[in-house]
């Protein structure tokens, strides 16, 4: 029998343990934010408070350029992955066909094999196909590892989907295109959106595959950070990171709030 005492003991252990986990996760982030206000350009000791790095960040064109490039690559590769991934998931849900097993197996490869292997194999293929390393090769590479994740999230959404809903729409006079745009896509939209968010975040944060598949003309934000490690990362990188974090936080809060409202509306 569980007594009140053991329950409260468990509760305080739970609280203590999760606090430690969150400290572990957030201590480095606190450092990033704190040192973005540091007067010293060396990230060792906090010496004093200043906003100046936020001003310098705007002046640092190569830093901003890398960030813009990251956004472009992430948007383009996400768009490709969403279109191809959604079509694939819907086709695999709807039909039985011969190469289904093969496609399924190939989709798991980028998920399971180490990123470095995918990176070097893409690098070698771009070399043999004479694709110059730059923004295009980077977008192709990012779309490659993003497609499976979109397929899986959309498929997860479809697995709870009653096929007779599509039939009902057809029965009521909707043709195939109307069924797709008016019924299927709106219903799987949450899956598509979470797949897109996943693809976008994977792309923004990707270092390994970008490291192998891009050239000097198309540096991304993670590559820029790695580049500046040797000379020591300057606080303006911290400043940009802090701003990105702030934006992410706002986006997450908004999306969670709207998801919460939606859930309330549909009574779940």
């Amino acid at each position, binding site marked *: 029998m569980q007594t009140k005492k*053991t329950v409260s003991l468990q509760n305080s252990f*739970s609280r203590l343990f*999760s606090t430690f*986990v969150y400290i572990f*996760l957030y*201590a*480095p*982030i606190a450092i990033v934010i704190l*040192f973005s206000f540091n007067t010293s350009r060396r*990230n060792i*000791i906090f010496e004093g408070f200043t906003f100046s790095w936020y001003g310098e960040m705007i002046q640092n064109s190569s830093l901003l350029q890398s960030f813009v490039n990251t956004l472009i690559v992430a948007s383009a590769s996400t768009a490709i992955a969403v*279109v*191809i*991934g959604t*079509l*694939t998931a*819907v*086709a695999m849900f709807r*039909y039985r*066909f011969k*190469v289904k097993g093969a*496609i399924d197996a*190939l*989709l*798991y490869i*980028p998920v*399971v*094999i*180490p*990123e*470095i*292997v995918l990176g*070097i*194999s893409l*690098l*070698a*293929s771009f070399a043999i196909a004479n694709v110059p390393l730059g923004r295009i090769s980077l977008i192709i*590479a990012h779309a490659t590892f993003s*497609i*499976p*994740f979109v397929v*899986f*999230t959309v498929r997860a959404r479809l697995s709870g989907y009653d096929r007779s809903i599509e039939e009902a729409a057809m029965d009521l006079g909707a043709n*195939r295109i109307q069924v797709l745009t008016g019924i299927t896509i709106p219903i799987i939209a949450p899956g598509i959106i979470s797949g897109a968010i996943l693809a976008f*975040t994977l792309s*923004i*944060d990707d*270092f*390994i595959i970008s*490291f*192998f598949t891009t050239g000097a003309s198309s540096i991304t*934000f*993670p590559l820029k*950070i*790695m580049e500046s490690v040797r000379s020591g*990362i300057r606080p303006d990188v911290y400043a940009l*990171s802090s701003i*990105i974090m702030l934006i992410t936080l706002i986006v*997450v809060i908004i999306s*969670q709030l709207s998801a919460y409202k939606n859930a309330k509306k549909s009574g779940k």
Partner: protein
Amino acid sequence: MFNSPAFRKKTVPLFAMISPVTAWLVLLIAAPLVYILIISFCTTNESHNIVFHFTLRNYARLFDPTILGIYTNSLIVAVLTTVVCILIAYPFGYIMASTSPFKKTLMMIFLMLPFWTNSLIRLYSWRVLLGKNGYINDFLIYIGLIDAPIEMMFTRGAVILGMVYTLLPFMVLPVYTVIDKLDNSLIEASKDLGAGFWQTFRNITLPLTVPGIFAGSIMVFIPALGYFFVSDLMGGGNNQIIGNVISRQFKEAYNWPFGAALSIMLIVITLICVKLYTRSGGKLDELGTV
């Protein structure tokens, strides 16, 4: 046949829907991997170009003591990373699964939030905490645990810490999912039949949640062999893993065939892990949902 209703209704839309993905997967996943396999049996000339001349030398070089040393170090790092991740993620997933739905969402958001910020910058800032003049040393001296600062950065421990820090959510998510899905009536039945908390945990909860641990282990162990930037940032060149060697062959030494052979070895290790996972009843689907 081309006018039959079945053709019109199935074949045409199906072809339109799956040909892009088929082309993409074949050209950018299957073909490149086959190409890597081919060049792993090739040699290079003086100007680092690949020469299609069959050799097993690249595979023989895998048994070079330095390479073997790095492999051993890499496996130790990956195993320890996995173990530490399980030790943190299991209780955490358990705690998360047993709170209210609102707190669950909150805990999940705050678990994932750090991973939406750049992982390199987060890893880099560990230097401020772990460094000789870092806050952790200061704290330890302040409470009198140590007299002089100790070197924590650029050690194997630091690499493992970095790996755990980067890969933890990949363990938490599958473990949390299985614990959360666990039918509570089983736990109640066990308690009803006279088992205490630990007996219930050992006989019911743990065996039923092992698949989640397996899935998480795959998703932590395999990347931990390849994440060379963690070892670069935290190990500072002293604690290399397989990923570092591969990366060097492609970006510095320009010995692609040897790098390809190293990669094939990594694929073999991966396949063995996945095989063990599916053999024990794991589903590949559960690896793709994070």
